């Protein structure tokens, strides 16, 4: 995995985590408008970056579009990546 790909992957991991952290907070604070705005903004950023990453480096999940042949099995497994 190139340095460039790894940096992009780590950014994606961070956004994914931020979405989770905000949603966990919202589960017990559903009326917090600021957290909800942050959540929605982060979700959009995450989705854009994920689409960009998958287009460049291949699928991260079975619901990602793939080139021929099926690329899902070829992208790196999380425990095998040198972070």
């Amino acid at each position: 995995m190139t340095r460039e790909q790894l940096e992009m992957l780590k950014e994606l991991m961070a956004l994914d985590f931020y979405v989770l952290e905000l949603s966990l907070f919202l589960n017990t604070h559903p009326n917090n408008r600021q957290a909800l705005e942050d959540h929605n903004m982060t979700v959009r950023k995450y989705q854009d970056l994920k689409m960009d990453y998958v287009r460049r480096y291949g699928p991260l999940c079975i619901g990602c579009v793939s080139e021929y042949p099926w690329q899902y099995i070829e992208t790196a497994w999380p425990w095998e990546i040198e972070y």
Partner: protein
Amino acid sequence: MWNYEKILQYPVKVSKNDLEMAKYLYAQYGGPDSELSAGIRYLTQRYFIPTDEAKATLTEIGTEELAHWEILGTLIYKLTEGLPVQALRDAGLGAHYAQHGKNLYPHDAAGVPWTASYIQSHEDPIATLHENLAAEQKARATYEYLINLSNDAGVIDTLSFLREREVVHFQRFGETLDIVRDYLENEGGRRDY
């Protein structure tokens, strides 16, 4: 349902092989207060818990614990990867090798297999949420012992992240307990005991 993503929740970077540390990390892979216990506990407790906040919290924290379980698996894999059998034997992992080869198995740091009796699931939401508050503190304490046992900056960094998550989960379960108590006092007053 669950969807798998080929990403970790937090990066795992180890600076060298360390079989002894791998052995200790099994405490959180398949021990009493492990991520496996946490995930199965919360996901099992969801069905009869009152309030939507509580259902969401159990579902989401339970799911996050499975992501942590994968981080532990990754740590153990990276600390063990590429070493000869003799090294496993020297580090006290010979018995593990005899039964599983180099692959992982959900047992604790002493090799005791994971069992569902580590967890409890009650209909009573007060009992359930108190169990979870205790579980988060026990997991936090275990991470602190593991951090004390490690001298690898990468391992310590990942363990510190996991420790911090237990603190956040404790906080969220505390808020959930307040919400459920409120519900029981105001709306769900009738109880069958």
